[in-house]
């Protein structure tokens, strides 16, 4: 280890596995989601319809990663309160300390790393807020997606019983007026098309989120010189032991 640096653990292997499962799921969700939205490749006409099943496989893939997202989201929600590192919920509460830290990190980002006046050994408020935004976006995708899904179970039946569609209705029917509110119109009655529009638009917000997320992790790694990107791979990063000595 380079002299003057201390290794700090930031993500357990379980958290890292979740991270990369999320990464993989997101790629699949976007690729299949875009196909569902407007099928962008064509299938060969010479085969009988039953053999191809292209849209059906895309939807299958989309729903499978959706279920994976569902499960990882529950784990992540758990970690927000019971993580053995800095519990994320403590970092998003708008306390004076958190607000100060949030702006300290933001200012450092805007001033191109000229004022790094915060403790970078633990997850800072700025990053935690940013991750919270992701989880909220993902939650909205989950709820709107499940609403779109339950529309296809209009018989009220499903392979695992009638409780499943009933539960989905209770859990996701609110997305209809909520989406209508987001999309807006001169008519006051909401429809599931609003949900679909929201599901699609928020995919773009998530893509933008991911692009900045990756950029920021790389930028941090280069400019903070603390190996931040290793958090997602090896689980730990390095912090300069004595900052004053460095200056």
């Amino acid at each position: 280890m380079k002299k003057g640096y201390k290794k700090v653990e930031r993500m357990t292997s379980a958290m890292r596995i979740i991270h990369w499962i999320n990464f993989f799921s997101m790629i699949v969700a976007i690729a299949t989601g875009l196909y569902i939205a407007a099928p962008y490749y064509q299938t060969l006409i010479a085969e009988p319809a039953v053999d191809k099943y292209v849209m059906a496989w895309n939807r299958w893939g989309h729903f499978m990663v959706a279920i994976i997202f569902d499960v990882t989201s529950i784990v992540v929600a758990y970690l927000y309160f019971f993580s053995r590192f800095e519990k994320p919920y403590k970092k998003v509460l708008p306390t004076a300390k958190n607000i100060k830290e949030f702006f300290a990190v933001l200012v450092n980002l805007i001033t191109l790393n000229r004022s790094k006046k915060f403790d970078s050994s633990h997850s800072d408020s700025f990053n935690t807020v940013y991750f919270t935004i992701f989880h909220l976006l993902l939650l909205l995708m989950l709820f709107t997606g499940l609403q779109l899904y339950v529309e296809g179970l209009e018989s009220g039946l499903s392979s695992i019983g009638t409780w499943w569609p009933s539960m989905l209705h209770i859990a996701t029917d609110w997305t209809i007026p909520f989406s209508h509110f987001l999309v807006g119109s001169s008519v006051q009655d909401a429809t599931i098309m609003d949900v679909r529009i929201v599901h699609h638009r928020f995919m773009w917000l998530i893509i933008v989120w991911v692009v900045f997320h990756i950029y920021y992790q790389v930028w941090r790694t280069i400019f903070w010189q603390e190996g931040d990107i290793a958090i997602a791979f090896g689980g730990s990063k390095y912090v300069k032991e004595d900052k004053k000595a460095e200056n």
Partner: protein
Amino acid sequence: MAGDKIESVKSLFTAKSAKVETNKGEEYYQNLYAQCRERLDNLKKIVPVSNNIKIKEAIEEEGVSRRDFLKWASATTAMLMLPASFTPLVAEAATLMNRVPVVWIELQDCAGNSEALLRSDGPTVDEIILDIISLEFHETLMAAAGHQAEKQLEDAIETFKGKYLLFVEGSVPMGINGQYGTLGAKGETFIDHLHRVAKDAAAIIAVGSCATFGGIPAAAPNPTDAKGVMDVVNGKTIVNIPACPANPSNMVGVILHYVLTGQLPELDSLLRPKFAFGYRIHDNCERRAHFDAGEYVEEWGDEGAKNNFCLYKMGCKGPMTFNNCSIVRYNEGVNWPVGVGRGCIGCSEPDFWDKYAYERPMANANIKAPTGGVEKSVDEFGLGLLTAAGIGIGIHAAASAIAGKKDNQGEA
């Protein structure tokens, strides 16, 4: 508007789901049967209110055989989700349709729903039945005009107070105090007209997409501030039969259900009868296998179109639309939009003109951006967002790189 939105969010948590219960158990149907029997016997005692046409004769005159009539009765029984044992009751109820007085008013509309009933070349049983219901008032169909018509309406309201079914066709223009639509010699606004006639109705049946959700008059920018009946009239039983035009089978279904049971059919959260709007077009579409296979019509008249491929890429909104066209079809089961090779435009859903009726998938459609201004396809909007983020990142990265270098030089 903001208040309305809060209301609609609130109403969401109390919304009934779209679930359709097709089998409610032996006991339920036995009780219902007895109840219907009693109701029909009582109705028979009532002398038909104003017209004395007998359905059996009317049907024979139009050249429909008894056999066809019974076929219709069993199909209608199934549509109303009743067991086959109810077929004789349904046939009987059909002959008693003229016991229930109906008032039909037209507001901001094209009379398309009335036309749908009247203008087919061979009248179907549904249409004959709608012809002989006790229509006490219908602006387009009746001979009276002006003060006479006004008088006739007042008489009808007075005579059948609390008993008549009010059919409303057309949206209600709410702008400039309703001055966009007035009628009659007194220049009464549509709003006042609706409220006056609605007050003493047993129930209101809004037919067509305009009367239900505002329809085409309510399309952006909605110059007249058009609204559906349920957004204007409070405290009344309302049934919505949307679609453009509403399917005569569904109109008859609702009246028949009322004649037969004395109650209105079970409704979904948008007040649409579940027997008709509890199905998604897409799930009963004959082209669904092609959808799953990824076989789409790419262009009107192409090889796919000749082979009846799925119309999703031509903008079919079947996956987002609840209606029974793919099951009962139109004109006594002759055909329906997807059957003739064009996509569903979601005409039975709120806001269909703005949010469903474009001939391409939603992703490529020009839907108003959240700010309300520019119309952009959803994907163009998303790519724009991504580009903006990309540029931001690029600038930040370049600036960081330059600033970083200077730093190093300083240290050196």
